[in-house]
Every structure is written in C-alpha cells, then in structure tokens.
C-alpha cells in the first residue's frame, strides 16, 4: 500500500512539474525569485548596495530578489557564473567599473559584451586625496613636489580604476611618481595619514569622518554642493579628467529578451526616483543616475579601449 502511495505521489509531482514547464511561456515575468549575483564578498560596499536595491525593489514589485555572493578572480567567477545561466532575466549581476579594469588588466577570457550592461545607476566621482596636515595638500603642491623630485612622489590606491586615474593625472600634468598598489583602501589611506605616501586616489566617501585627509580635486563637471571647497579638475585647468567615475549598476546576460529588459528599465526608473535609494547613495557623495542599455554599453566599450591604452603600455 505504502509503495503505491509513494509512486502516486511521485507521479503527481511529475505532472505538476510538466504542467509548470508547459505553461512557462504564458506566465508573465517574473514568475520565480530573481538572483542578484554579487562578485565581491558579503559585507562590502557592492554587497550592501545590492542588498539595499533588493530591499527597495520590494516596494515596487512583488518579485523576490535574492542576493548571492560569488566572489573570486576579480569578478570573473561571478561573470562566468552569470554566463552559465540561461538568458531569461532571472540572473541579474551587480557590476562596477572595477570589473572592466580587471577584465583588461587580468585578461579575462570572456567578451566584455557578453553581458548586456542594463542599468548604470550610481556615479561615484574619483578624487585625489591628500594628507590635510602635510606640506603637500593641494594639486599645485602635488605638481610642484613631483617636479622637484621626479619619479619619487608616492601614490597609493587599489589597483584598477584608481590606478588608471593616477596614470592619467601624471600624463596630463607632465609629472611622474611611484604607484604602489594596495588591495585594501583602508591600509593605503593609513599610509597617507602616516605620511609614507603623499597621494591617495579614491572617492568622496573615503574622506568622510577622517579629518586627517582632504580632497585636493574632484572629477566632475562642476563643484559638488556637499563639498563646496573641493575644486574640479576642469577649474584647475587639467583637461580630460572630468568624467572619471567609479560607477555601479546592473547587467544581464546578452540575449535577454527585450520585454524583460523593458521590465527592468521600468523598475530601475522607479528605484532611481525613490527617496530612500537617493538618500542611501547621496549621503556618501555619490550621484544617483539611470543610464539605460544603449548608453551604458557604449560607456563600457569606450572604457575597455581606455584601459587598454594604460595597461598595455
């Protein structure tokens, strides 16, 4: 009797499964939880941003977002994982500009356009940070010091995006220095506070709550209202450094149906307008924007070229 009951149960389950399979096309997106792949470890900035996104998204859609960390190989582990999944919109990848830098620098074996760069959401301006108590504080100080002792000035920053800003700054100002990579930004900032290094390259969030550090210049079209004393590169007459940003956003696998992309576009539009989302990001000096696929894909293609000129020298 028992065996028959089990067989009957199995058959029923199987039928339900087949039924679900058969009606898949008819069901509106999304009909199951969406996984958000974070290529960094839990507890970091990207992870927290992705979790905040999942929390705010719940206000606007009944869909469930589940954040999953797939760290490793500078993001390639997460990237390859997303590519191994079907292009059905149920695997969303949290992305940052670091991914592009690592792609070029570490020669990732995937096409940068294997992802559809769906939404560019946060623009985090790059800034040059110095020790507020030292002799080298402003951009003029940095340039004068670097010219007085060519190749001796020490710049510290995490490798990748901030590293390239370093090289660009040197190029534009005709100076040179020593770039020392630090994978943990905190230790690099400690080196500037301790005056073993002169300059750190980072973002406005890095100087928050650290009176020993100051921003010497920021990459933006015009001054930030939060930081009225920080000049832009443009004002200082340094060209070509107006759009250096550490962006964050989301991507889907290439080939995801247009209808699903449209669903995400609408969701991201709503989230971008959400006051809680704006406050969460703007308090740290980040700009909340929403560039859709077309513009985002173009930005990524440009950046791949840009990184190549600096890493392949």
């Amino acid at each position, binding site marked *: 009797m028992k065996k028959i009951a089990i067989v009957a149960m199995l058959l029923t389950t199987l039928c339900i499964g087949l039924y679900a399979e058969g009606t898949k096309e008819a069901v509106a997106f999304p009909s199951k939880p969406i996984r958000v792949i974070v290529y960094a470890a839990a*507890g970091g900035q990207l992870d*927290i941003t992705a979790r905040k996104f999942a929390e705010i998204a719940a206000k606007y859609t009944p869909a469930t977002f589940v954040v999953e960390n797939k760290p490793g*190989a500078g993001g390639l582990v997460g990237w390859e994982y997303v590519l191994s999944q079907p292009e059905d919109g149920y695997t969303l990848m949290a992305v940052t500009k670091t991914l592009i830098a690592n792609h070029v*620098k570490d020669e990732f074996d995937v096409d940068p356009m294997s992802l559809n760069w769906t939404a560019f959401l946060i623009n985090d301006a790059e800034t040059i940070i110095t020790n507020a108590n030292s002799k080298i504080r402003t951009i003029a100080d940095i340039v004068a010091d670097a010219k007085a002792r060519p190749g001796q000035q020490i710049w510290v920053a995490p490798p990748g995006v901030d590293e390239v800003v370093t090289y660009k700054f040197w190029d534009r100002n005709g100076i040179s220095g*020593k770039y020392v990579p630090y994978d943990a930004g905190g*230790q690099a900032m400690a*080196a500037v506070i301790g005056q073993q290094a002169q300059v750190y390259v980072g973002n406005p969030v890095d100087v928050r709550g650290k009176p020993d550090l100051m921003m010497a210049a920021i990459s933006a079209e015009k001054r930030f209202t939060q930081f009225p004393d920080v000049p832009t590169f443009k004002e200082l007459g340094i060209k070509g450094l107006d759009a250096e940003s550490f962006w964050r956003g989301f991507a889907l696998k290439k080939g995801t149906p247009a209808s699903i992309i449209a669903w995400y576009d609408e969701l991201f539009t709503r989230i971008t307008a959400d006051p809680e989302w704006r406050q969460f990001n703007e308090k740290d000096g980040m700009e909340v924007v929403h560039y859709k696929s077309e513009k985002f894909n173009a930005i990524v293609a440009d950046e791949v070229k840009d990184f190549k000129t600096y890493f392949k020298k």
Partner: protein
Amino acid sequence: METVSYMLEGFGNILAVAPLLAIAAGVFMGILVGAMPGLSPSMGVALLLPFTFRLDPLVGLVMLTAVYLASNYGGSITAVTINTPGTPSAVATAFDGYPLTQQGKAGIGLGHSLVSSVVGGMVGIIILILFARPLAKVAVKMHPAEYFALALFGLTTVASLGGKNWAKAFVAALIGLLINTVGIDPISSVKRFTFGVTNIFDGFDIIPALIGLFALSEVFTKLEARETKGIDVGDAETRKDTWPTLKEYWSHRRVTLQSSVFGTLIGIFPGAGSAIASFLAYDLAKRTSKHPDTFGKGNPEGVCASEAANSASVGGAMVPLLTLGIPGSAATAVLVGALMIHDLVPGPMLFTSNPGLVYGLFASMLVANIFMLFVGGLGGKLWLKVIKISPAVLMPMIIAVAFIGSFAVKNSLFDVAACFVFGVGGWALKRKGYPMAPIVLGMVLGKLAEVNFRRAVIMGGYSVFFTRPASLALLLISVAAFALPFWQAGREKKKAVKGE
C-alpha cells in the same frame, strides 16, 4: 576623568533589554561561528549584517561586535576537542589543547582557553579605551618594510615550533609559502601557476586549506588506524579534578597577561591579523617559559598564550577603526559597512558626534566578555560530549561539516574539491611526520611578507629595510629568534658530550 563619565554613560546606554539581548545573541552566534570550521569571524559578522539594517544603530553594532569577539574564542573549542581549529587564529591553540584532550584532560584545555580568551578580550578593550589615540598614531607610522619584518618575525616561530622536528617544520612552512605563489601576482598582475583555471586566480583560500589540512587529514588518519572508540574524558563532565581550579588559572597569569598585551598591539596594525598575534604570543610564551620542552605536549600555558592573544587582537583592531576610520581586520571592514548603513561614519569624529554610541560599544564589549564566560562555561559540558562520540559517528559528521564549510566561503564547489585535496595532501604529509601548522603559517604570512616586501622596495628601494630603525630592529630580532633554538641545541649537545 572624562573617560570615566563617558564610560558610565556608555554602560547606561547598554543596560537595557534590547542591547543586552543583542549582546547575548551575538555571543552565542559568535561562539557557533567560530567553532564551525569554514565560518571565519569576518564571515560571521557579514552574515549577520543584513539583520542589523532595521535595528537601532547601537543595538546592531553591539551585536556584530559581540559576534566578532566571541568567534575568536569559538575557534578554540574545536581546536582543543577535535584538533580542528575553527579559525586560522586558533591553530596555535591546538598545539597544546589537543594533546591535553588526548591525555584525558580536555577540561583543562577548554577551561584555560575560555578564561584566557575572556582575560585577553578584556585587556584588549581596556587598552582600546585608555590608549586608542596615541596607539593609532604609532600604527599609521608603520611602513611596508616593517610589515615585511613583522611577517618574517612570524615565520621565524617555525624554528621553535618544530622542536626536534625542525627540519620537517621548515619544509612544511616552505610548502605553505609555495602554495601562496599560486594566483595573480598582487603587484604586477602576472598570472602565476593558474593554468587558466579561473578559481585559482586569487590563489587558494585559507579556510578550505585549513579545514582540509586539519579536519580531513585527521579523519583520514583515524580511518587508517581504524579507531572506533571516543577519547576518554575522565570525569570532566562532572567537573571534578579535570577542570582547572581558580588557583591554576591564577598560576598562568603571567603568560595570559603578556599574551593579551602582545595580542592587542599586533591587532592595532591594519592587516596584520589575529593569526600572527596568536602564533607570536605562543612562541613568546614558549621562549620565556622555564620549561619550553613541555610546550606542544599539553602545556596549558600554550593554550592561554594563543587564546589570550587572538581575543585581545579584537580590541586592538578596533583602534584604527574608531580613531582613524580605517579597518584593521577583515571583520572590522564589515563593521565599517554596518556603521555606514546607519549613516554613521567611523573615525575620530564619532567620539564627538556620537559619544554615547562609542562608549556604549566599549561597555558592550566588556559585557560581551562576561557573557562569553557564562555561555562558554555552560557549553563546556556539551563540547566534552563531542569528544566522547565514537569516531565512526563523528568522522562522517566532520567530513560533512568540512565540505559545507568550504562551500560556504565563496559558494563554490571548487573550494570543496580544494579542501579534499588539502585533506589528502595533509594526511600523506602527516604520515611522514610533517606538522600541519607551519603550512598554515606559511600561507597566512606569505602574502603579508611578499606584498609588503615589494611595496617597500617600490617606495624606498632595497636599502629601506636597513635604514628604518624599526624595520632593522625587527629583522635583527627575527635573525636572533631564528638562530637561538639552534644555538641552544648545539650547546646542549656539547654539554652532553662533555658529560659523557
């Protein structure tokens, strides 16, 4: 005087139902996280982080800090009972903790690990409260050359850890250093020994390696020996002679205090870590002991040294976080996230803008240590039961936990396979008498040494190691520390020859 009134305010802030419950929950979770191989303190804090989003900032923060504190103790439980350190910083605890268990004195090991953890934790926090600012000023003056010298100093402990077996310990440390060379070069991004395998671009993760080398290799060894009986724990369960008496705890006060202060100081330097603190404190205890030959054979002082140091490093790691806004360890990096979520910015301004929060946090850490004493004390009987379980039952459970733990690090099956390979490798090396701990030491310190050596050279050339007084002093101490055991052994040999 100001500090006293602020501390009183801090205690006032946490002596309420919600913060106390949060501390208790944090301590409980922390002990479990620490004891579970695969969950490191930083992962424990990160896992609980989302739960604090909706909590009051102080309540959330005290819970996470309690997890961080207690997980450093939790790692010692499995180190003592089943020779499987739950965290890299508990590796040195197993040196004497497990031999105690094998001698039927698990209670002694567990008792000392708990009490020295609590004392270490307390000392670390008291130093944090009293001297945070001046210590932070010293911490930022540390040049990469000094970090390299510190890592090298850590590696010299191999010479004394190995004892008579020093040649094999040396080879084991070299294996650890060689494993470290796998992965993308941290300075120049060259791919080293990666063979196009994406999963090893970052090298081998320390956690699966730790679990494989200790837990799995032990399982394989037991399997080979066909051991089926649990270890006799004597009458420890009834808390008679086999738990340390107050007098015994007191008799180890010198080692415990010395290691606590030492652990706090190491903890202050961003990136140095609690594992190096416990190894160095263990080594120091052994060298300053009147009976160094009893270390590694079940000397409770070994347990005290390692545990006091790794718990004390928690207070140390909070120094740069609170005074400079710079995280000193992986777990404090997650605490930065926890603060930012609540729009609080870690750094010196926090003392003036939110003194209630900062001193509440200090008070909570003291309370968490006291809770830990009770939870750990009550749990003691439970841990002893684990030892009594027949290996036929315990070993498959260890294998399951080892695989789950390795998977949990990065949600990656590759790490499970890596754990298995490390287990087989560890078992093979153990059969030939090679110790496991130096491999872990090599892996932990190798990266610290390599990265900082190269940073120092970029910054100041090769001469920087000798022109900076602190670096030169540390290097000379390292050479002396390395040479001393051999010199002593040589002298004893001569004496023995003369005696004949």
